[in-house]
């Protein structure tokens, strides 16, 4: 699916939140690429910074949060240098976002058609209302909602329909990148599966790139081409979704995949429980942020932070197991091809 053309390059992105207990480093020096036309799954525990990362990609971090550094290169241009006006133009037209709760993501006093027409007209005021409505109802029908529902208010629609309206709002201006932040989490499993399936169709039909942020590992396996795993504000592993599932490299990814309930699990065999708690990000652990919970932690792990390195083409991992360092005494593991 991926033709290796980079749509967005994220370089050294850091986001901090100011809280009463101090600065929380929610996203810490994260770098990765999003390829054109791919579906990239971003997984991690609650509070690992994956939603913050999603918002940061559109520069939508609200105070008390702040992007403290990094580059966001979208189609060759660093959007960190854009002013507010340029950002408004970027949002919706180049990249768009779908949120977790379709119940609250639509303005309750605005009809569906008003939402869609507004989305068009804030970017293209010269487009007439009739033309905008025409375009909107075509899109809505393509997404499987009868166009007579256009004059409904959000509360008159089901959760699945509302989420489809959100998808339509993301697609209406042919945005290149759609960031779906837990977009299917609040839906029931059947609707969720159906919508996830439609994401694939949408990608094919509209040629969009998607970043799917979720804690639902099964959904990601089903949906995405590549997988990115976050832990405590760090990107710890990235790679082809099948490869990561078959052979997770980072101990955190291994634990995460082992924690997924499996109906074929041997009877009597208990579900893996990761020891410890996610760290408090006002005072993140030194070195590798996962080392206090890591079953394979070494002496170096608590002292020096490993880099996210490419251990195989297209396969990145941020772990001392796979890289050398003068202060490291343990042998470095080879990654099987």
């Amino acid at each position, binding site marked *: 699916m991926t033709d290796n053309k980079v749509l967005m390059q994220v370089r050294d992105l850091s986001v901090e939140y100011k809280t009463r207990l101090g600065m929380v480093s929610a996203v810490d020096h994260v770098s990765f690429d999003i390829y054109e036309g791919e579906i990239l799954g971003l997984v991690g525990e609650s509070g690992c910074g994956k939603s913050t990362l999603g918002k940061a990609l559109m520069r939508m971090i609200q105070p008390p949060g702040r992007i403290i550094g990094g580059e966001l290169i979208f189609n060759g241009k660093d959007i960190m240098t854009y002013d507010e006006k340029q950002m408004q133009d970027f*949002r919706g037209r180049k990249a768009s976002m779908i949120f977790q709760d379709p119940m609250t*993501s639509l303005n309750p006093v605005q009809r569906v058609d008003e939402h869609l027409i507004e989305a068009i007209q804030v970017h293209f005021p010269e487009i007439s209302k009739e033309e905008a409505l025409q375009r909107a109802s075509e899109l809505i029908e393509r997404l499987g909602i009868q166009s007579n529902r256009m004059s409904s208010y959000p509360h008159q629609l089901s959760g699945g329909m509302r989420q489809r309206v959100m998808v339509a709002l993301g697609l209406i201006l042919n945005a290149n990148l759609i960031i779906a932040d837990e977009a299917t989490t609040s839906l029931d499993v059947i609707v969720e599966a159906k919508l996830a399936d439609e994401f694939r169709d949408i990608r094919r039909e509209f040629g969009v790139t998607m970043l799917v942020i979720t804690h639902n590992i099964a959904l990601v396996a089903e949906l995405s081409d590549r997988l990115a795993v976050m832990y405590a504000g760090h990107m710890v592993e990235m790679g082809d979704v099948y490869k990561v599932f078959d052979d997770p490299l980072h101990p955190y990814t291994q634990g995460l995949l082992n924690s997924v309930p499996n109906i074929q699990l041997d009877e009597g065999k208990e579900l893996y429980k990761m020891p410890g708690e996610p760290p408090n990000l006002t005072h993140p652990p030194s070195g590798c942020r996962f080392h206090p919970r890591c079953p394979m932690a070494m002496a170096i792990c608590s002292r020096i932070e490993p880099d996210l390195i490419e251990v195989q083409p297209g396969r990145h991992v941020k772990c001392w197991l796979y890289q050398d360092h003068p202060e490291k005494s343990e042998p470095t593991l080879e990654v099987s091809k």
Partner: protein
Amino acid sequence: MSNSLRRYLITRVLMTIPMVLILVTVIFFIMRVLPGDPIRSQLGPRVSEEQADALRERLGLNRPLIVQYFDFIGDMVTFNFGTALTQGERPIKDELGERLPATIELTIPAITITAIIGIFSGAYAAKNRKKPIDYIIRLLSIILSSIPIFFMGLLFQIAFSVRIPIFPLSGRMDTLLMTTFESPTNFYVLDAILTQNWPALGSALGHLIMPSVTLGLALSGVFVRLTRVNMIEMLQADFITAGRARGIAENRLVYKHALRNTFIPILTMLGLQFAILLAGAVLTETTFSLPGVGRYLVERIQLRDYTAVQSTIAVFAMFVAGISLIMDILYAFVDPRIRY
């Protein structure tokens, strides 16, 4: 009009009947428990008992209380109200007909000023939360809601009609113009427009500015705070974030999306404030010598004019009930989720 809306309206109107009834009953008995009576207030302390009795009989005050009560209820139901007990014993309908327009001409601009100032500065403060302008607006709103109306009125009078004489000090119209001005409805602004008497219109409006600004400002403080709090909550709503993600400008998110969603609590408060508005009108009319119902009520309470006071209170009560009914209907227009 849908069937359910009609049923709702009928129930609502029927519900106001016991409300008004209870209120006027309480007033009826309180007035009679209060020391002093309309006879003494008119004739003074030195008249003989016979003279007082004669007047009492003529006014029907010698009848048993229960008879007087039902007599009054009967008058009220027919919107007839009977005649006043003092000051020429004119029909109360006529007296209120002269006074009510002045009060309405005062309160409509006042509540408009309240709503505009309250809602917009509240929304502006919410948008600029925790910035200096937010603190300034909040401080002003506390000052406005804690200054007594008559004091604020006096300050305006000193500033804008004594020191810098731009606005007239008191009354509804220049006395010179009054000699030629005819007002069949007693709505001076309306009549001036209908008769195309532009100098009279200018004078009537000029006389309204200070009183209505005073009353409007005094009530706006609570709206600033209410709007601000609700807007802050609304601005954190998911649909605002989602709108931002579609590139909708911040001002549009604040003043269109969020503001419309805060109209429900604002409308509720507007309905509730109407009662306070009428109370404020009493003070404003007194400060600016406006011949409205508020001043009428004060005068007649002092004279212990039972029927006049009861009837005025009843009219006030019906007004407040009517306004809150209108607010309830408006809810459905503001919020599509509300259906009757």
